[in-house]
């Protein structure tokens, strides 16, 4: 994963970030790899672009942890595709990760806030 606008100033890859985003993209409905990538790009307003070389291993890792499962299904436009869906464990993991992330961001914002208490 990298930021789109400044490839020269890439964030150091942090393990776990992409996984959380994948879990989030499956929260509403099952989706295929292409759909997941599109979802992340759209939601982040093209700040993130998902590299397939990272997306696929990420999906495998999530499957391995039992957070998602996969199934071949026919897509609305009559194409056979592999769909991923969240498991109960995955849903729980997403909640945990989201709340931790919120606390983290809030703490960050508090510290970085322009006004000093």
């Amino acid at each position, binding site marked *: 994963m990298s930021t789109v606008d400044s490839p020269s100033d890439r964030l150091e890859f*942090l*393990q*776990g*970030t992409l*996984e*959380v985003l994948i879990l989030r993209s499956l929260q509403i409905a099952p989706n*295929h*790899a*292409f759909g997941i990538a*599109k979802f992340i790009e759209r939601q982040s307003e093209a700040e993130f672009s998902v*590299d*397939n*070389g990272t997306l*696929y*291993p*990420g*999906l*495998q*890792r999530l*499957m*391995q*942890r*039992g957070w998602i499962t996969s199934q071949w299904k026919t897509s609305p436009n009559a*194409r*056979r*595709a*592999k769909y991923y869906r969240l498991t109960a464990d995955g849903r729980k*993991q997403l909640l*945990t*990760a989201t709340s*931790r*992330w919120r*606390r*983290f961001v809030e*703490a*960050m914002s*508090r*510290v970085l806030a322009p006004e000093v208490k």
Partner: protein
Amino acid sequence: MSLRERWGKLRALFAGRAGLDDLREEIDTHLAMEIEDAGHTGTNPHEIRKRFGNRTAIGESAYNAWTFETVESFAQDVHYALRGMWRNPVPAGTALLSVALSIGALTVVFTAIKPVLIEPLPYRHPEELVQFRTEYPRFPEQPRGDWMSWENAQEAGRRSRTLEAVAIYRNAFADLASESGDPPEALYGARVTSNLFPLLGVAPMLGRNILPEEDQPGRPDVIVLSHGLWVRRFHSDPGIVGRVLTVNGRASTVIGVMSAEFDFPMRRTAVRTPSPYVDFWAPLEVARGGGHSAVARLKPGVTMAQARQDIGSIGESLAAEFPATNSDRVLQLNFLHDRVAGNARSSLLLLLGASVLFLLIGCSNVANLLLARGHDRQKEIALRLALGAGPKRILRQMMTESCALAVLGGLAGYLLSVMAWRILPALSPAGIPRLASARSDMTVLFFAMALSVLNGVFFGIVPALRAVRTGGGNANGFGSRGVAGGHDRTRSLLVIAEVSLTVMLVVLGGQLLGAFSRLMATDPGFDADRIVASVILPSADRYRDPERRDEFYRKILESVRNLPDVESAGTVDALPFSGENTGALVSAVETSSAREADAEVDVTGGEYLQTMGLRLIEGRYFQPEEMKPSNESAIVSALLASQLWPGSSAIGRRICLNCRPGNAPMWKRVVGVVSDAKHSALNEREKGAVYLAAGAMERAAFVVARTRRSAGDLEQAIRRAVAATDPNQAVFLVAPLRSFITDSVADRRFVMILVFITGCLALVMSAAGVYAVTSYSTSRRTAEIGIRMAIGATPQQVHALIFRQGFGSAALGMAIGLVLASASLRLLRSFLPGLEQSHAAHAWIAAGLVTIAAAGACWLPARKAIRVDPVSALRHE
């Protein structure tokens, strides 16, 4: 790992290629969808494909992610660890160096200990082999060697119910006549009974063992060669067996060649020999008296305690049956393996202890550095925990990092030890058996690696746990730069530990060095620097006749005395520091209260006493005619004179040597008193000496000469003089007397040098550790310092503050270290000779060194701190 995960992994492993095909299909679909999607916006399909990436590579990396996640994440952790080190070269380098040095030191010692103390002896069932020993309960000093008289060894073998067989051996010297251009050569070897090789369970590499009938008198001579001699002298001639050599002037048939690994006896009893290893084995014919050693094998199922009891009671009944020879002695039994290392055991264990302390210093150094690094990484760890990485995962990564560091450092340490053992064999004292053959091998590598991993876990666990705990506890891992962080307590504990261990090591090293230099400064009683000693043993068979021996030595002594630059020369039967000695009980029978003392009895010829520089205190030196066989003149040392006739003159007194019921009394009359001299060791108990002249030339084995020039020049001249007298006579050795003394302390010097080096390294390492910690905590306090200076603290105040806080823990460590050092010295004194009188001065010098190093290590960062510009320091955050 959850059960489901395990199952998933297992299923995937069995699913094999189907999974990969499935992935390929999925990726192809994905690409098709993307192209279709792009069709609406009008992007070029070729461009899409390019951006999509290599489909095979994607499929494979996904497939591998599934199957080998653990391995992959491990590799990733290692990668992170190496990158982390690369980015912080100074702390990482310090840590690596600490690990390398401490693992290296312990590995060096392990390499030495392995062959000497751990590896079993290269004989069959070595755990059953035992060595006899004779002790004299009434004598204050027990023999260094394990001696056993021929008769007692024979009787023990005959009477014992617990021993399978008893084999007897003794040192032997032989000269090999010059042959096809090779000069005559003096050999050091052993005469052994024919049952020795079968008892040890060894057989020659070429040829055969000594046959039982071959150790009986009147049989033709046979000889078994060592591998070394066979290679050196006979150019590995495969047809050597059956060849007839001239040994001691007699024809002797080579019956076998031992393999290169075989060495017996391993523990040398002769201090100086031409080769440090036994060169030959020849049959020991029926002999009598002392100077023998005996080994035996326990019968199957017999314990050592049973055998000891058996031999003890045999010793008692022998004392009752033969009071003349046995009433003063007891027989003992020890495991051969324990006796081979001899006194080296305690020295090596001391070395091991020192290097373990050193390892602990290295450990605390690294733990401290990792702790500091963990602190700097709180941001990263907090972020990762926030993103859902499990604490276990973080812990594993931290541990992988410390282990990677440890393994890298351990490898470097192993290489250091390999290099050290390139040099050390040359310095290894020959007195420690098998030490010179110490080499790094797979076991040593395994040891170093196991130690490294253990080390990595040990010094990594605290920083790792701390990182996870603090990272999770306060999500705002950012900017938690306290005024004086709470972690400083752990760090100062580590500093205290490190400094106290260093003080222990340095004080110990200083004490050993002090004891050694005191020992070397001990006056042996003679002037060793300008005396050259040569060992010339007249070939036993050609000079069987006492008169011929007498004539031979007279000629040699005469020609040595006539060499240019030789001031005086003499002969003796047992030279000081040569390993030879003859003790006797001396009785002064004429006094009303018969006094006795044990003393060294040496037969001297020529101007031996004058040459050695023994001053005449009373009476006169020997006169040439007193060297005749029947002569009762004796000269005693000042100590013996004061022991036997305190307060009165010794001249004209009669003494009796070894006057015991059953012994033929040997009466002598004192004609002179000379100054005292050491005989077998610089630290030996004070012991008197009797010098005799009767039969000096027949019994001579050493020639000593005092030279005006350097000792080295004389060697060739002496060899030529001997060759001129008898071209077939080999000269064993010509060397300065000083080197005999130096050799007698070789083991101690070896250990002392290694402990001293360890102490010096410890000093440098802990200074680096204290420096690193102080400068790290100072750098973390830049803002605080800035504030202090901004509100008016003077640089002196800041300097004092920083210095005091750093030096405080070092000083505490020093105090603890001194207490520990004095406790351990008390413990060591009981089993390490030479530490008896320790000088407080050495301990204070050592402590002073540590103080200076620690003070310097705290001073420099404090200096740096006060150069801080307050404004930039406040912006530092």
